[in-house]
């Protein structure tokens, strides 16, 4: 029964290849996008760390985005 399901009445190669290509390329694209996002988050945090204490506090106070990036990073660590 499993062999019949995999063979798909002779169309297995085309069907599985189609679904496989879609799944693999979508996964690779997702991982690449996630990696880029993490890279920019980390770069932002490095920039934030390089600020003086006063500037850093001011940035964190004024920017919700900065607060959230910091919170996300703390959770991950």
């Amino acid at each position: 029964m499993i062999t019949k399901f995999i063979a798909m009445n002779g169309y297995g190669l085309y069907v599985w290849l189609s679904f496989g290509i879609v799944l693999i390329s979508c996964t690779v694209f997702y991982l690449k996008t996630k990696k880029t996002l993490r890279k920019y988050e980390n770069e932002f945090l490095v920039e934030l760390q390089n600020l003086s204490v006063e500037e850093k506090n001011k940035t964190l106070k004024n920017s919700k985005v900065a607060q959230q990036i910091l919170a996300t990073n703390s959770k991950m660590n």
Partner: protein
Amino acid sequence: MFKFFSFSNIYSLIQKLINFINSIFFLILIIGLTFALILSPPDYIQGDSVRIMYVHVPAAWLGLACFALITLLSILNFIFKIKNFYFINKSIAPIGLLFTCLAIITGSLWGQPTWGTWWAWDARLTSMFLLMLFYVFYILVFKLLHKEELIVKVSSIIAIIGSINIPIIKYSVEWWATLHQPASIKIVGSSTIHSAMLLPLLVMLLVFLLYGALIFLMKYKTEIIRIKKKNIKRI
């Protein structure tokens, strides 16, 4: 009203949406794959090769929809200079390119057992290939040019010229004699697809939509961080 659309508020909303999509995505993917590969019946002529439709059609529809959206936002950005649209378009374009490439590849894999050829330069296939090229040019503008004003102008021109291709893709199967079959699903008029195949197709469309939305949100979030990083001392 405008405060709601600030990057800070959008950023919070993006995170919530990403979490929501992540929480439901795999469940819907498993349902979609079960329907597409196991529960849906084989076609009486094409047999099991018809299952390729469940990845080919949603990819093609979304490839077209992304370009139509890019064109609309490009025109609006060109007229009203809404900077957010620039970042939205930049985030949508790679998803549209991915879906268009997948539609072409899976179409080719469907074509071989159905038509006996991987590729033919017929109207539908050629116009889809042109769409892919327009996506490539559009993305290259963002990579190669550096002045934002110039990027907006050039990318908008590419999007507007490329949009002429959208109705050509849609009606190519009616205007010319092509290998590609006519549309089975019509927004206006009765569809010729059985509900046993329509339901899996709609579930798989939802899977592709959620995936596209997830990638868009992650890319848009990256753009916001990039801007904030650039202006960190001005915050």
